[in-house]
């Protein structure tokens, strides 16, 4: 096993869930006909000027405080200048040396204990506008390129982590937790397919070379289209860098930072064509925009608006509802809507663990089969809560639980209606006792077997009892029979 440590830092671009773009009023809706959501401002038309969208700033602030960042009192806009066909102004409005937030952290953990819980430091999170989309043929010469500027000017929050992750798994855990946090606080839908969340990874190795710590050159990996891809790309890249190091001995600083693209089908990273000289973006403050001041009150209001974060909620589920770390993670990681459903059901049922079992097994299974979100689940949270409380009180025999659940689900009935339809009624104990006595009288061999120490022999009576009265609770029948035999 090669002896090296993988060092990973992530740059995540998150599209903020604003109705309109960062510096104009064009819609940010995904999927419109190309170049229909544009105006003179976002396409950089001569004479146009940007005006900041306050909603984007508010969402960015909310995210920054959720990531435990420091919010400086003053932040400003800078122009990052480069030429590219999908960048109509020839510069991107971004934030350079005074980002709107810095020095935060996000805690990651693994309920399967594959790594120890740790804080991943956030270097900074800053706002910027997105570029457009180029669709082109890479073949030099006559190939035609087309550009869609619908996305141009969409607000992005770039969240840059410190190189605190040590494996693809940790990177994935960070992304899962980040996505969960951002969806919980409602600042982004984090939809990777629609480009609302994009990840670049910076990877290198620290290895021990004869007692001396050596770092390999940092590689930036792009083109990763899922969290799974990020995990795989990092693991692949670590192995590749180790091989390269063994072959060439190249160290950090020997060559400029390389960019490699992830080829998901082939499972490899490939070098991308890079300029010989490093790019100089010639950042300078955008004279068309005024600096932004954050008051203490605004920061406090943003913090207050957060509500409970996923990590808080996991802790609460364990301490207040007696769930295991694993169960708490399963519920919380399903997102805030499912968690709200769970909590509403617990309110009615009063038993967090029992509700968790039904939600994490049956409810989630059905949702997965039907590929539907919790909002369209036919059993209301209160209805599920009542169902669980009936099971708990014994009003509904546990043996009939799944039957009732299925009827509630398929026929959209309440628990009472479902039980009625299935003819399930509570059986009076004295009635059940009479039934059990009759059965014992008719089966002396079983009575003898039990007396001889074969308690499981009672099982045969349970079947008979159910035939005579389908509402008989198997556990109760078993107990009554044993009690009666003891008295005989």
């Amino acid at each position: 096993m090669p002896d090296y440590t993988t060092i990973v830092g992530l740059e995540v671009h998150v599209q903020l869930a604003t109705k309109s773009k960062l510096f104009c009023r064009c819609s940010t809706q995904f999927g419109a006909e190309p170049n229909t959501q544009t105006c003179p401002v976002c396409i950089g038309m001569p004479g146009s000027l940007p005006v900041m969208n306050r909603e984007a700033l508010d969402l960015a602030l909310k995210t920054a405080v959720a990531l435990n960042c420091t919010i400086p009192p003053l932040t400003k806009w800078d122009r990052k200048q480069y030429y590219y066909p999908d960048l109509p102004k020839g510069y991107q409005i971004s934030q350079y040396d005074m980002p709107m937030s810095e020095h935060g952290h996000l805690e990651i953990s693994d309920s399967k204990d594959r790594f120890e819980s740790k804080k991943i430091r956030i270097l900074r999170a800053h706002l910027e506008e997105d570029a457009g989309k180029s669709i082109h043929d890479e073949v030099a010469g006559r190939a035609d390129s087309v550009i869609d500027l619908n996305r141009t000017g969409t607000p992005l929050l770039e969240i840059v982590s410190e190189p605190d992750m040590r494996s693809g798994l940790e990177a994935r855990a960070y992304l899962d937790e980040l996505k969960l946090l951002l969806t919980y606080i409602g600042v982004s839908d984090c939809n990777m397919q629609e480009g609302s969340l994009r990840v670049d990874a910076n990877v290198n190795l620290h290895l021990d070379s004869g007692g001396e710590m050596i770092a390999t050159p940092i590689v930036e990996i792009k083109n990763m289209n899922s969290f799974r891809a990020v995990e795989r790309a990092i693991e692949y890249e670590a192995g590749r860098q180790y091989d390269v190091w063994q072959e060439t001995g190249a160290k950090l600083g020997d060559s400029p930072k390389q960019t490699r693209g992830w080829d998901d089908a082939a499972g490899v990273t490939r070098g991308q064509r890079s300029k010989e000289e490093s790019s100089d973006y010639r950042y300078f403050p955008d004279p068309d925009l005024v600096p932004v001041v954050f008051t203490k009150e605004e920061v406090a209001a943003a913090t207050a608006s957060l509500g409970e974060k996923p990590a808080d909620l996991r802790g609460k589920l364990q301490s207040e509802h007696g769930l295991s770390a694993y169960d708490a993670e399963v519920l919380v990681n399903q997102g805030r809507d499912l968690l709200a459903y769970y909590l509403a059901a617990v309110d009615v049922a009063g038993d967090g663990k029992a509700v968790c079992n039904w939600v994490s097994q049956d409810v989630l299974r059905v949702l997965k089969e039907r590929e539907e979100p919790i909002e369209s689940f036919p059993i209301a949270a209160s209805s599920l809560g009542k169902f669980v409380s009936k099971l708990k009180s014994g009003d509904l025999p546990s043996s009939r639980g799944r039957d009732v659940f299925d009827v509630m689900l398929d026929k959209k009935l309440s628990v009472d209606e479902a039980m009625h339809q299935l003819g399930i009624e509570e059986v009076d104990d004295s009635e059940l006792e009479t039934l059990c006595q009759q059965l014992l009288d008719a089966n002396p061999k079983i009575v003898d077997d039990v007396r001889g120490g074969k308690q499981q022999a009672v099982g045969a009576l349970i079947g008979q009892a159910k035939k005579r009265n389908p509402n008989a609770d198997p556990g109760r029948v078993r107990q009554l029979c044993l009690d009666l035999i003891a008295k005989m």
Partner: protein
Amino acid sequence: MLLTSLSAVDQCRLLDSGEISAVELTQAYLDRISAQEGNVGAFLRVTADRALDAAKCVDQRRASGQPLGKLAGIPVAVKDILAQKGERTTCASKMLAEFSAPYDATVIAKLKAADAVLIGCTNMDEFAMGGSTENSAFKVTANPWDLKRSPGGSSGGAAAAVAADFAPLSIGTDTGGSIRQPASFCGVVGMKPTYGRVSRFGLVAFASSLDQIGPLAHTVEDIALLHEAISGHDPHDSTSLDHTTQFTESVRKPLDGLRIGYAKEHFAEGLDSEVERAVRDALGTYESLGARLVEVSLPHSKYGVATYYVIAPSEASSNLARYDGVHYGYRADVAKLTEELNAERAELEEAGKRREAENLDTPLVRMYRKSRSEGFGAEVKRRIMLGTYALSAGYYDAYYLKALKVRRMIRQDYDRVFEQVDVLAGPVAPTPAFELGSLVDDPLAMYLVDMYTVSANLTGVPAMSVPCGQSNSGLPIGLHLQAKPLAEETLLRAGHMYQTATDWHTKRPTL
């Protein structure tokens, strides 16, 4: 009565009383343009049909008793750097020769709302870069006072149009003196308002932190009229100030106890003696009107030009990046450049220069390179290069950041001076209008013409050029008046006071 020699304020009165019609007035200007524009060349395009339609509309509305804007029926010429829906905006550049914006600049919208008659688009230095209008890609504009001389720049067309009575009012832009210096050269009044007073939305940017739109006219009263129409807060411009003030009423009120400052630095080496005499005479006039003269010092003003020529090109290099042949303006012949590129590659490969062949431009980069090389003129390219250099890694601190610091010190000088005086008076330009062609090969000498004007842009204060004399050869000389930020009212009242005591503004060139 010659309609075209009246002030806009007087024309408004005649229009209001029904003594003249807007069509009559517009036609009078169009006739004058037809007769004289060939000599002057103030316009890139005269929009005669549009002007007459607008004038007709004003007359009809007036006849039917509908309310009208404060510039109803008054012709206004506009520098060809403001977006006008349905009209080209060329910035006198080959790059934007065919560019037409789908929207109106805020100032254009305000002029239309005031029922002004937009009579034409005036010539200028390309992208407002220059001080002689000779950097126009399309034509030369002559100074109406001496056709061999420059009207100044970059708003040379706007100043010449007023001087030649092609329009009573015109709109210019001023980034380092581009309204005031041509106003001075052409013997008209030109004002650069406080930065943020007039919306820049729709003004094709040269240097965003310095650019400001402003009025040109024969009289300070007319300046007040036009300034009132175009100023005010605009939600489309984040740097726009939220201060609304009336100027047309207050302008006629003289100022009691006016304190006029003059900076000793403004009367040092490099100032033409005739200009100095005219300016000192003007100071004397103010004294005779009861003003007190105070000598002040602007110790950092000597760094103004250097500071300006770092900041303005830096911003320009960024603002002009959008003209890349992809989205806006001129695009080089792609078929031809691809052919050239292929030929270059074949030649290098044949010579065994594989590495050089690989490092050739991509077609996209070559298209950028050629489009910008061919679309921009020499001065624009010079400034883009200056600015790109100043913002480059390793130079940023020494140039751009240093310039920002000096800018702040110049502003501190101004703040101190405006605690002592209400108005700062001095020369606008070191000389009267120079001959066409005399400075085109000496960009540095051309830049130094801006020495008295750039500080107003660097500090954001309002500043105005008012005609205050003539050279022995009959060339106009301008008096530079500056006031503290948002003190346009003081500036206008001081300017009007001067014009009530002098008749320089009534002089006209013989065409």
